[in-house]
């Protein structure tokens, strides 16, 4: 019987020939990631309480991204704790204030196909875009990983999610995942792994695929995964990863899936998720004319270099509406530099964008992109729960970088296909 890519990774990590859904196995962790909030401040302290060292310093990556660039005593304290802990524990891979962990981690060459990784953040699923199996856990759980190098895993059922056809101009990975969330719900794939495949995925850029696996968290999945191809290898190579064996990490033709589902990529319209859940997704036309105070391009979900390029395609030669703030917080510092070097950032700035520092910021209701009382916003981020990106009275719509940019120009929710 064949195995899926996820089963192959879990079998290798648990030292078995094969695994099947429902098995509870102990896996050896290839890489553990924590950030300033889930790391030194919480799990770091707990590790010290256990009085044991990090099991393998080569396999731990600490990335500060949550409470960075904030002028409050509490945020500064978190940064100090993070800096001090990494110094006193001689953390080898401490990436300080260079952008959001889920993008920085692969960008700095830490992710490769076939790895079994654990991250202390729910969007750790992002690394699945590179054929790695990465799950999110909480602070005490990652303490256990840092101490022992292992973790228990219930082998999940596999869902094969085929995106058929090629996406239309102005439609992106974000629209695909919002469509899936709208159709199947925020817990549609609880405890399962969703494997994205098909022509639509093959035609997407490797960076855009990261948006699919990033928001595997918003369809309840344990994680999302995409088998690596030439585009994966090319992007990882540009990020300094060499010797990738993409062929070793593919699902077998006779692998068993609990469900085989499809999304019609060629017929897909831009999607917008209304307040206050990503599952409130519908075609952009359903929400046209909703007036906006703010449009935000940001987070691990929606401000990668490719995302900024999408926004620039819409914004070239246009101006943001006078009553709407347009804020851009590039996912990483390096991507901001790349966007500046190639002229993408200038297009955004000329249109009226205010460029913010890289970090989780507005997505978690911190910094300059936090929504004001009663404000209505649209953003390329992943969640719009009550109280997440602003006070209870604020309202947030989720959409792709194309749609966020088009809406910034219109001052109300707008269809990007009319502006390309």
């Amino acid at each position: 019987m064949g195995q899926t890519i996820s089963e192959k990774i879990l079998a290798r990590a648990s030292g078995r020939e094969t695994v099947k859904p429902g098995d509870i196995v102990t896996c050896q962790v290839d890489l553990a990631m924590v950030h300033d909030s889930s790391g030194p401040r919480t799990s770091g302290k707990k590790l010290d309480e256990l009085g044991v060292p990090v099991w393998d310093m080569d396999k731990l990556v600490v990335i500060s991204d949550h409470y960075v660039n904030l002028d409050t005593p509490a945020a500064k304290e978190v940064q100090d704790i993070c800096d001090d802990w990494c110094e006193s524990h001689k953390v080898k891979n401490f990436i300080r204030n260079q952008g959001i962990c889920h993008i920085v981690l692969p960008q700095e060459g830490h992710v490769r196909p076939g790895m079994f990784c654990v991250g202390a953040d729910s969007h750790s699923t992002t690394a699945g875009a590179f054929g790695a199996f990465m799950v999110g856990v909480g602070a005490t759980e990652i303490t256990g990983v840092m101490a022992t190098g292992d973790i228990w895993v219930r082998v999940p059922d596999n869902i094969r999610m085929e995106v058929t056809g090629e996406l239309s101009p102005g439609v992106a990975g974000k629209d695909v995942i919002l469509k899936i969330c709208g159709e199947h719900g925020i817990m549609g794939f609880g405890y399962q792994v969703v494997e994205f495949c098909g022509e639509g995925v093959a035609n997407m850029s490797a960076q855009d695929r990261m948006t699919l696996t990033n928001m595997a968290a918003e369809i309840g999945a344990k994680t999302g995964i995409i088998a690596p191809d030439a585009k994966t290898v090319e992007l990882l190579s540009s990020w300094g990863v060499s010797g990738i064996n993409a062929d070793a990490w593919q699902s077998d033709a006779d692998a068993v899936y609990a469900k085989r589902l499809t999304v019609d990529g060629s017929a897909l319209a831009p999607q917008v998720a209304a307040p206050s859940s990503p599952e409130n997704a519908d075609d952009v036309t359903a929400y046209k004319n909703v007036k906006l105070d703010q449009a935000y391009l940001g987070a691990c979900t929606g401000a990668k270099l490719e995302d900024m390029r999408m926004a620039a395609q819409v914004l070239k030669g246009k101006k943001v509406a006078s009553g709407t703030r347009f804020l851009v917080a590039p996912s990483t510092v390096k991507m901001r530099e790349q966007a500046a070097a190639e002229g993408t950032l200038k297009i955004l700035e000329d249109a009226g964008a205010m460029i913010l520092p890289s970090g989780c910021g507005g997505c978690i209701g911190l910094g300059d992109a936090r929504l004001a009382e009663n404000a209505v916003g649209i953003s390329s981020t992943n969640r719009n729960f009550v109280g997440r990106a602003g006070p209870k009275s604020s309202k947030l719509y989720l959409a792709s970088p194309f749609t966020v940019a088009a809406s910034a120009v219109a001052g109300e929710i707008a269809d990007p296909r009319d502006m390309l």
Partner: protein
Amino acid sequence: MNHKGKAWKFGANIDTDLLAPISALTSAKPAEAYTECLKDLDPTFAPNCKEGDIFVAEENLGIGSSREWAPQYLQSCGIRVVLAKSFARIFYRNCFNLAVPALVCAETHKISTGDQLDVDMEKGEVHNLTKGETYKCDTVPEHLMQIVADGGLMEHLKKRFKKAS
């Protein structure tokens, strides 16, 4: 293992931003931050929750972030057992890691705030003493009950390292 307590009943899709708002996570007084638990949904919960109470919800409890403060704040409010029709997976694991048993019960819609419950974790039964009803719940995998019995993952790990040395 049995636990008796008074129910606090909530609906579906209680997310981690409601349970542990960002204002609490960045509070200048971290020791009191738990009092902001569910402030945007039911501000009466945190001030009135008592030691030993049971948190009851419907589908998808704990969706969203991995922030362990979500179950930790419930625990700080006094919650000792959590029942729901389904759980977000990270929240579910976080509960056990903090020694708060999280039980999957398909009939939580029959429970009301204030009901006295007696939860039998071995048998997988919830007795509603107020309404005179009994509901089935899924039994908990043995390795998770062991973590609870040890007092949470930290104590479990301490035991593991003690044995090893």
